[in-house]
């Protein structure tokens, strides 16, 4: 048996053991599905939810919120990070503003998100944006600050004679690993904000919305189902992103220890 299969088998075995312990504790120690739903309760709830047909709509709506927030964070965070990382004046100008806004917890933006956007998809997107923007901004900024000087000088002597060319052909490619890990952090924060943002009824579907809705209905097995789906969605998107980045953008780093 090789290492890979061994790893996989042990992982599966541990999952099974954990599920069995969970089942025993839920059923014989706690004994109340409201406090701790058992594995079979959750499995049953999952089958019911599949039958009810809203799962797909929930996932779609949540992905929409998540997508709006992340894309806005990306398209604002990367350019501002580039400006601040490359041009000293931009850094001096924007840094105080960023430093005041950054420590504000993203969820503190929820009241204004609702006032500005109403109970809409955009309001949820804005809260996720508030959480995802700063990790992307700071990662881009430090990625640009850390571009080795010798690359910039090599670019200059090889004919890059404008800042635009140096950014486009030297600094940006050098900063891609930093930006990619900033995006991964931002996605983690984004899921966190999503659950809170959907709490306020910005939509009638959504994984976060359903989680709260079922809590109000005291349907705790359903709550667990939505918790697991949220985790799985985060994991899947992170995996897809990482595979894309490692396979397409960062093939040149294959020799390095990540």
């Amino acid at each position, binding site marked *: 048996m090789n290492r890979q299969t061994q790893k996989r088998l042990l992982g599966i075995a541990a999952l099974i053991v954990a599920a069995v312990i969970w089942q025993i504790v839920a059923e014989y120690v706690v004994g109340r599905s409201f406090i701790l739903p058992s594995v079979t309760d959750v499995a049953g709830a999952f089958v019911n939810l599949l039958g009810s047909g809203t799962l797909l709509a929930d996932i779609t709506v949540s992905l929409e919120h998540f997508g709006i927030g992340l894309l806005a964070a990306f398209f604002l965070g990367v350019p501002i990070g580039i400006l601040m990382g490359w041009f000293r004046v931009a850094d001096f100008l924007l840094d105080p503003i960023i430093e005041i806004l950054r420590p504000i917890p993203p969820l503190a933006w929820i009241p204004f998100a609702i006032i500005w956007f109403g109970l809409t998809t955009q309001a949820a997107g804005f809260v996720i944006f508030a959480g995802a923007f700063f990790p992307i901004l700071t990662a881009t900024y430090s990625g640009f600050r850390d571009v080795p000087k010798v690359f910039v000088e090599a670019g*200059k*002597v090889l004919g890059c004679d404008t800042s635009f060319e140096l950014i486009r052909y030297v600094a940006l490619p050098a900063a891609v690993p930093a930006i990619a890990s900033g995006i991964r952090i931002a996605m983690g924060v984004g899921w966190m904000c999503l659950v809170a943002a959907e709490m306020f009824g910005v939509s009638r579907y959504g994984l976060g919305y359903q989680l709260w809705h079922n809590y109000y209905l005291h349907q705790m097995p359903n709550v667990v189902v939505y918790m697991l789906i949220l985790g799985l969605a985060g994991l899947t998107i992170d995996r897809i992103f990482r595979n894309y980045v490692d396979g397409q953008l960062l093939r*040149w780093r*294959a020799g390095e220890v990540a």
Partner: protein
Amino acid sequence: MSGVTIRDLGKAFPKEDGTATQALAGVSLEISDEEFVCLVGPSGCGKTTLLRIIAGLETATTGGVTVDGRAVTGPDPKRGMVFQEYSLFPWRRVIDNVAFGLEMKGVAKEERRRTADHYLELVGLSQFRDAYPFELSGGMRQRVAIARALANDPDVLLMDEPFGALDAQTRNRMQKELLSLWEQTKKTIVFVTHSVDEAVYLSDRIVVLSPRPGSIREIIEIPWPRPRDRTSAEFAEVRRRVLRMIDETENAH
């Protein structure tokens, strides 16, 4: 054609307390076309600063540098540079590293790759054209860096201790290859090194700098044909002379 004229060059680096460190003072040097010149001297003598001023990466405080009669005002692909550190762009394949300068010039992909292939062949690395820099050894990376500088067809090739990080054997082989490249391409080369042995082996003239402030102590002509024999008596004699000179300039302060 591609001569370098350095006239009364001075460079001061400002310090925190408002005073300045005089890195170079009163340096004048005439480097003729197709000449191979090495700059040597103890650390702190400003040899790298001098090279960077010729490259246009630093600006002189007084005096100036002209190449082909044109004043140096900033970096220019007409003056190729090979750095001591590995400077290949790790995200580009070897071929696209070599083609980088041509890409900046706006040369079409087909044509710039053809040119890059030619220079890769010149440094003997054609079979690595599609590799990424991390797949190459230190010596190979520096060969690619030389090919990348040459692909711009510069008037002058500036080299800042390019073999400093290589082991002794690789270093000797690289020196031999550089001389053959120099004979084929007929570039003017200004080469900074710590190794007196390397300087005697390579150059037409050795410029010995003395520190604080960096200035030219002496220029030694080496008229012998190449390849030179490192073990010969005259080789050892010149090496001893230069080393003694460097020693004296270091201890004089």
